[in-house]
């Protein structure tokens, strides 16, 4: 048996029961019981499982849980809170601008993949809010949306970028 270890998910410490090579996604969903990241392919091809590890977007379906040790894992469930903490926002109803823009632009159909789009776009804009349309297209090109909600997503990310710039 490997030594027991913890990961930190949305600011809360969690003792991992799974083996260290278990993909982070299953620990997040079945142990930490978050709902944001979802299984889409298990192959890092679609992005539905995206979470932030120390602020960077990561495909949790292929990252071993032990690799998240000692790092801050943020899921969509905790994105708004983390944003508020970073920005010093008191209003507990405030969302990350990307989340709000997805609502304002109605940027989804079934929403199963939306986690990946919101988390990837949030990391992109957190890093650099002034982006061209071309940069948005390229930055999100590794994500899949089977319903075809891309037009709304494009509007939403542009709106969020404007908000954050």
């Amino acid at each position: 048996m490997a030594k027991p270890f913890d990961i930190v998910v949305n600011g809360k410490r969690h003792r991992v029961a799974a083996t260290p090579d278990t993909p982070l996604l299953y620990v997040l969903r079945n142990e930490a019981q978050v709902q944001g990241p979802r299984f889409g392919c298990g192959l890092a091809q679609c992005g539905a499982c995206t979470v932030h590890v120390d602020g960077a977007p990561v495909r949790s379906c292929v990252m071993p849980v032990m690799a998240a040790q000692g790092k801050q894992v943020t899921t969509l469930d905790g994105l708004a809170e983390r944003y508020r903490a970073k920005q010093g926002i008191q209003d507990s109803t405030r969302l990350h601008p990307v989340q709000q823009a997805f609502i304002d632009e109605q940027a989804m159909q079934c929403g199963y993949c939306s986690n990946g789009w919101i988390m990837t776009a949030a990391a992109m804009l957190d890093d650099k809010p002034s982006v061209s349309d071309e940069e948005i297209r390229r930055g999100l090109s590794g994500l899949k949306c089977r319903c075809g909600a891309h037009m709304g997503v494009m509007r939403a990310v542009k709106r969020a970028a404007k908000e954050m710039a």
Partner: protein
Amino acid sequence: MSEIMTQARARTPARSLVTRREFLQGAGALIVSFAVPVPGLAAGPAAGPWPAKVPADRVESWIAVNADGTVTAAVGKIEAGMGISTAFAQIVAEELDVPLARVRMQMGDTATTPDQRGTGSSNGIIQGVPALRSAAAEARGALLAMAAERLNVPVEQLSVSDGIVRASDAPDRAVSYGELVQGKRLELKLSGKVKPKDPAEYKVVGKPTPRQDIPLKARAEYVYLVDHRVPGMLHGRVVRPPRAGAKLISVPAGQKLPGLVKIVTRGDYVAVVCEREEQAIRAARELRVQWSDPAPMFPESYDALYAMLRTAKPKVTEHAKDKAGDVDAALDTAAVKLSAQYEYPFQSHASMGPGCAVADVRRNEARVWSGGQKPYPLRKAVAEMLELPIEAVRVTWLPGPGSYGMNDADDAAMDAVVLSQAVGRPVRVQYMRQDGTGWDPKAPPIAFQLRGGLDAQGKLIALDYEARGFSGRVRSNGTEVAGDTITAQLIGGYKGNSTDLFQFSDESYKVPNKRKTSHIVAWEQSLPTGLRTAHLRDPDGMATCFASESFIDELAHAARMDPVAFRLASVSNPKHAAAIKAVAERAGWEARPSPKPGVKHGVVSGRGIAYAPRAGSIVATVAEVEVNMESGAMRVTRFVVAHDCGYVVNPLNLQGTIEANLIQSMSRAMHEAVQFDAHRVRSVDWASYPIVDMTEIPDAIDIVGLNNTPQAESKGAGEPSTRPTAAAIANAIFDATGVRIRRVPFTQEALQQAFRSQPRSA
């Protein structure tokens, strides 16, 4: 949507009817009675037996007014991700005069919502709206009658707003719906006599309304099926045969796999059940299984497949009623004769999340949580598999990923049922990506032969349409028998119940000599394989319209006519003509024959049109494309769509639905063909079954709404705008390049090859 969570997670005892008070409301003779308080419609009885049907003729089956003044409305439809639950809530809010935010929808639970079969064929609005509208109108009538008695004011002098009934001339005399019902259940037989609201008074219906589910989804608070957990739940994964038709020889004994609870084998069906999800994934991957080495079941390539379709003896042939004159004679004498073959491939639903389900099978009853579109028929199939009476099975729909028809959701449900039965504990099954893309039921391929003739003046005088497709195996009634699931097909000994669907194009071209033929070729050998077929969004519609509307363009070219003018010269339905004119006008269509004059190398651009009706809705689409003649790279730069689906309940939502239809159908046209070899499906993930990505989307999608008046019946919008896309793009490619593309998909490689090898028309 939080109702769905409550419904799924709560465990409440069965309701019983104790007190009952009845009174007659004067002339209307409505009977209103009360039962003991129930927690809304939401939870329903956790333990069976559950009634065979929730009675559709009773108001309380559709509408529950809760003590806090909120309203729960039930419908036998599901939310497929297009926002229909908000449209339904709008209907209820409107008729009852309650704020939209106070209406919660409950959908697709066989124990608590009326059997409307579920959703399919874009019928959610068509069937769901009238049912909810009349139930809500009757509930309002009953509540007004109660308020009249309570306030001692005649009904005619009452008005309602925000769920509060007031005397018109004495506004301080008021009572809320919540106070009237007092947490009890309003029970009422539907009389069919209460007139719904005059559309002129609509405040909520027909207004752009943000979807109720989207804020929850953006905050990760929306509860999907994949989030559903049952105490003591185990995890299952399936092991499908490595080759089509392979028989299970044995699973070697003594295999040590962490967390393994059971290896389940029945016939050629193999699956594992483990304590933890990651253990089940590993066990399914590492399990050693001996399979037989079967003879090839599939053609070796698409060329071989289409050749087989064109030469196979049909199982059944049908001619469309839309028939005129003598096509063969007319073609013999036509001044210009044209003949062309078109081909459309197998396509996968490829839902974002592969199939998932949870089942809790006990000795005498079973609960199933499923993401499929039709939970009511699935209940029958589950009862058959478990040899239980229908009352012993409850299927509860929970939101899955977009399904676009008969995807793998019902298969996953049956897998969960079989595995839960085998281990005697609740089991959650989720497919891996290869089980989803590789094994979901596929849209069937079709090979077309079209022939047409023009007279010396370029007038269309003969049109001959012939489709050769595989037995569609369409489950129009849903998964009604166990034998329609891959689970039962691998177990063996079950009979399927799916039907063939003839593959006709839909249009209203009036041609003096016209014939449409559809041949269905048997494909039953495919049933336990990854090339079994079922319906995918707008079943056959994209394919038949691709062939038909591409060929109309070819005829327009032969006649040296503008493609819009050529269509308008023959189209006979005025609404169809209106859609074609509207889309051309909005697109700024330049009237001229295709292809566009100019040098055909480097990057060229063009535009194409196609139109199609579908079940009362009409769509005309213009695609504008840029094509690189050297590399074969192509991008749609703009779509323009004229869309007539009658009265629109939620225009904001319709925009999103149309845009998504366009992008998905563009993906299907540009990228999607299920790859296979003689033994297996080769498309098993997003690398081997690519779909559209963000770099390819158009710069704009412009939508023109038509016929959107309260007088026009609301029709479906879930699928119609998928239909013309492939044809519109192919016609635009021809306009840009002078090269006609007759096979889907229009991949970069296919286009490059076509530009190199095909003669260019001028």
